[in-house]
């Protein structure tokens, strides 16, 4: 077995994830390398979900009975865990959504309906980047179309980094919001937050960071980032699907208008008008994903018990190893940074002329699960002149042996279509 410095005790960790023992296609061992799409869930999270439904299930923030109070305490307890996990100054800055897409749409809609000084209108500009996931492109396109605002973006360098050479021309006095990804889901690039935030603050623009591929993999400190909003999702960090987070600075959440209206987000309602509850409840209309929030809380406990700094070191060691091993495969071209420097554990590549669909299918026949396609980041594929990529992405339970299996699998793919 390959020993690398910084690796976690994956043998012990993998025992927490029952699904990793699965066999597929007539007895082949599952090699799960699609963690950037969604992570697997440890027993601790699965137990928290079933325990919630078996013992505590009730609607939250209403009713005076025991179950309602316990369910509320668990749901709000999950908010405390998230706040600690991201070093939020206040728990009231943590809004639960259903996923990162909803979090980003929420920001776009807050700004679209806001009064001055936040209002996005036809005289203002929105800035994103060419490496965004569609969830951080389309909400801003919609906002631009509806308000007449101009949408601008940073391009990419040939080696998969943001091209910030025109930073001062892209972010100007007209910019109201700069929204960008912290770690790219397709390129793996870790972006230089500080330079962008500094320029945005110079011109008085708000900053929104999509941390969907960061929160699961590295320590995340919203205060250190210096952003105004940070969005991420639970299911990529060992939590269940159906739960996402938007963190926002308290004064903004107080000033900005609600988006979805309904139960739970109000203070008083008459037939003529309503007043709203304070944040975060102002932004959580309707019955929230309660069990899912509890599950996310359990996932955070699990990740904390291992340590985000240790998970980061583990994935960095794996990424270094994977970049080296993949470099040995003939005709393989990594799309994105070609070293492990400032790079996350998602690696996209092309393999000669073999279409990624075919690569993925033949790998699947060997039990190896990867993602193929444009990864909801089609502009990146257009930028690099490729129809799609194959992506392998690792997590805390991934092993060097699985990278070896991938490399062997790719050799088989080459022979098959060669």
């Amino acid at each position: 077995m390959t020993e690398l410095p910084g690796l976690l005790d994956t043998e012990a960790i993998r025992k927490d994830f029952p699904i990793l023992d699965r066999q597929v296609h007539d007895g082949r061992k599952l090699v799960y390398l699609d963690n950037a799409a969604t992570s697997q869930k440890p027993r601790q999270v699965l137990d928290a979900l079933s325990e919630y439904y078996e013992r505590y299930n009730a609607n939250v923030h209403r009713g005076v009975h025991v179950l309602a109070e316990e369910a509320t305490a668990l749901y709000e307890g999950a908010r405390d865990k998230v706040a600690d996990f991201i070093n939020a100054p206040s728990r009231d800055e943590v809004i639960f959504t259903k996923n990162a897409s909803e979090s980003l749409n929420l920001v776009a809609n807050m700004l679209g309906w806001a009064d001055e000084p936040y209002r996005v209108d036809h005289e203002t500009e929105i800035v994103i980047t060419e490496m965004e996931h569609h969830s951080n492109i389309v909400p801003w396109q919609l906002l631009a179309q509806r308000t007449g605002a101009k949408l601008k973006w940073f391009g990419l360098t040939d080696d998969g980094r943001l091209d910030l050479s025109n930073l001062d021309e892209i972010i100007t006095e007209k910019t109201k919001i700069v929204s960008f990804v912290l770690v790219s889901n397709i390129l793996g690039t870790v972006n230089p937050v500080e330079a962008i935030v500094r320029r945005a603050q110079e011109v008085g623009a708000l900053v929104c960071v999509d941390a969907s591929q960061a929160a699961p993999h590295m320590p995340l400190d919203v205060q250190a980032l210096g952003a105004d909003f940070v969005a991420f999702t639970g299911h990529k960090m060992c939590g269940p699907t159906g739960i996402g987070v938007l963190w926002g600075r308290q004064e903004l959440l107080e000033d900005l208008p609600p988006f979805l209206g309904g139960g739970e987000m109000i203070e008083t309602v008459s037939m003529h008008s309503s007043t709203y509850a304070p944040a975060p409840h102002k932004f959580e209309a309707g019955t929230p994903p309660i069990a899912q929030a509890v599950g996310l809380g359990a996932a955070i406990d699990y990740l904390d018990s291992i340590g985000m700094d240790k998970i980061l070191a583990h994935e960095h060691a794996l990424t270094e190893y994977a970049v080296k091993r993949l470099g040995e495969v003939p005709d393989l071209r990594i799309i994105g940074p070609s070293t492990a420097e400032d790079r996350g554990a998602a690696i996209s590549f092309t393999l000669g002329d073999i279409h990624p669909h075919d690569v993925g299918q033949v790998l699947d026949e060997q039990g190896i699960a990867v993602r193929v396609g444009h990864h909801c980041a089609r502009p990146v594929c257009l930028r690099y002149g490729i129809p799609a990529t194959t992506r392998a992405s690792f997590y805390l339970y991934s092993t060097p042996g699985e990278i070896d299996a991938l490399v062997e699998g790719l050799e088989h793919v080459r022979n098959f279509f060669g």
Partner: protein
Amino acid sequence: MYQEVILDHYKNPHGRGLRDGDAEVHHVNPTCGDEITLRVRYDGTTIADVSYEGQGCSISQASASVLNELLVGKDLPEAQKIQETFLELMQSKGRIEPDDAMEEVLEDAVAFAGVSKYPARVKCALLSWMAWKDATAQALGEAGADAERKTA
């Protein structure tokens, strides 16, 4: 799934490249980025040519090649019968084991039977066939629609 016939068509495609046509369509598979530009040329209701250019996986490319081989030279009602039979096979979720009658209609295209077990790949196999149907409707207008009604 990767039958020898499919790999052969993928490596040595029939009729690839764009030539003159009566109508041109561009179809994409948004889930994976497969694309095809396809032209049809009719001589009355006989298919004089189906030409195409595209990018995509072996399944989508081989399927376009098989389509060209099967449909060029056929009269529209017969071509529509082949298209409908292929559609039926591809939507069968692996439940149809092609019999002799089906094999007679589909020829090389029966090799795609295995693909129907993979929902993610069915669209790849159907891409060129849907493009052909669309292009035919555009090229023949009412005449195409009439022929379609007769075979329905």
